[in-house]
């Protein structure tokens, strides 16, 4: 990997929920165009880690820099956060708005685009996630896979430089997982910088530059997918892989 400046730097992140420590001294650097897959057992802090990146959760200690600029939960960080898109496990589409309105809302209200510009952008992103024909429907009329692709398109409409995915396929029926993963592979091949929390090992092997393994709020291993899946070093990673690969 060439020595370009990192787009995202997380340094010494600590996060407590009351007396429970969810993140314990986590540090991670991500370079432009890099694809990071985060995995680990349930409750290990994967979601919390990426939610801290766009300030859905605030950190108790440590710093997060995007493009060298310090990120916090103040309004000052809003312009920086615009460059970070997020896709959730439960899609979180706005059920009272049509697909098109879901996509144009933020570009118009936050990005300052005109309605015509926002519509052009929305149609382009819907084609990109292969769902152009559903523009007029409401989220409740779509399948889970379609909803998640709309959610990806909605995040892309803000023209982000970093995309965060929190288990984007784990709420889906098995037959819909691939249509979402295909879109994500496309995105990766287009050069998008991505941090993906997922247990889809096929996806990780195919697109990940590095795999981050977490346990108990700590980043335990950061490896290439080959090394992580074929030669895990820590006994915890071995145990984890044994569990998810055994069936």
């Amino acid at each position, binding site marked *: 990997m060439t020595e370009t400046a990192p787009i995202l730097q997380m340094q010494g992140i600590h996060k407590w929920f009351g007396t429970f420590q969810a993140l314990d001294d986590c540090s991670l650097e991500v370079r432009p165009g890099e694809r990071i897959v985060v995995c680990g057992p349930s409750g290990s802090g994967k979601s919390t880690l990426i*939610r801290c990146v*766009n*300030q*859905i959760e605030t950190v108790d200690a440590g710093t997060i820099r995007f493009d060298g600029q310090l990120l916090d939960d103040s*309004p000052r960080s*809003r312009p920086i*956060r*615009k460059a*970070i*898109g*997020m896709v*959730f496990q*439960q899609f*979180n*589409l*706005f*059920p*009272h708005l049509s697909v098109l309105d879901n996509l144009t*809302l*933020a570009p118009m*209200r*936050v990005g300052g685009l005109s309605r015509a510009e926002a519509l052009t952008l929305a149609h382009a992103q819907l084609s990109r996630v292969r769902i152009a024909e559903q523009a007029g429907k*409401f*989220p*409740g*009329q779509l399948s889970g896979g379609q909803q998640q692709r709309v959610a990806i398109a*909605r*995040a892309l409409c*803000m023209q982000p430089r970093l995309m965060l995915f929190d288990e984007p396929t784990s709420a889906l029926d098995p037959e819909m997982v691939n249509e979402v993963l295909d879109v994500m592979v496309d995105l990766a091949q287009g050069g998008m910088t991505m941090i993906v929390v997922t247990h889809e090992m096929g996806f990780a092997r195919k697109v990940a530059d590095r795999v981050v393994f977490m346990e108990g709020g700590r980043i335990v291993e950061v490896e290439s997918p080959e090394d992580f899946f074929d030669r895990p070093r820590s006994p915890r990673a071995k145990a984890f892989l044994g569990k998810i690969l055994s069936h």
Partner: protein
Amino acid sequence: MTRQTAKELTLQVLIGLSPVALGVWLAGNLQANLAARGLTSGYDFLLDPAGFAITEGPLPYQTGDSYLMAFLAGAANTLTVSIPAIALTTLFGALLGIAAISRNPLLAGVVRLYVDAARNVPLLVHVLLWYVLLLTILPDATKPFVLGPLFLSKAGLALPHPLTGEWPRLGYFGLRGGLQVSPEFTAIVMALATYSAAYCAEIVRAGLQSVPRGQWEAAHALILTRWQAIRMIVAPQALRVILPPYISLALNTIKNSSLGVAIGYPEIVSIGTTSMNQSGRAIECISIIALLYLILNIATSFTLAIVNRRVQIRER
């Protein structure tokens, strides 16, 4: 028609008829009792002159007018207090409900305190409190307290007329012109608003909190401000939860305006009891009071139900 549905239908008809039968039996009984005591009954008295004055209201009632006109003037007055009371309830309730979910613990705490305090004081006490407050702390009519376009004094509240745009002027005996409302009117409207707003705040808070957290998070991830998230994402979804209890609160507010009787505001109950004392037709007057409330509330719930339906069908 199957035997089953025929049986069900018969049952429905019997159930439907039983209150009618009960009513007929009671009415017959009443007639017999009244006749035995030599009392006259019937609604013919409605066309007799009522002979009492009504101090204020939008209808041009005069002392010589009929009981019917007096009742109508009372109903108009009930509406006249209910509409601003419901409007203020909605405004205060929405603001308080939004403040109740504020991330600022002080603000949320103050709202909590207000809601608990206002709900635990009987409405009658609210009414008396406002009335006494207005009559004691406000200056005399000749030296009104000016609050922007509002002129407050012991003579009540004067404000620019919403239709003609005419401003109140200070004359030798106090304010003239504009829209002038009595201290009784102001007290009952403010009491209803401060009391119902506490309930409205709870309805709004519960509605906002019924929207899944993921919706807030998605709004945050799209860089909407908290206020934009409330306005565009959370409130429209909360409305479906808010409207049904809000409608029953609005209906309660109309019925609660009957407490105007305590401070002599001439609304339906006040007119009704005065008419009852003067005409001696107790049953008739009470049935008219009930009928007028029934009509007002059916009209209100019908209107709000249409709003409710329009909110419910949006989405999928």
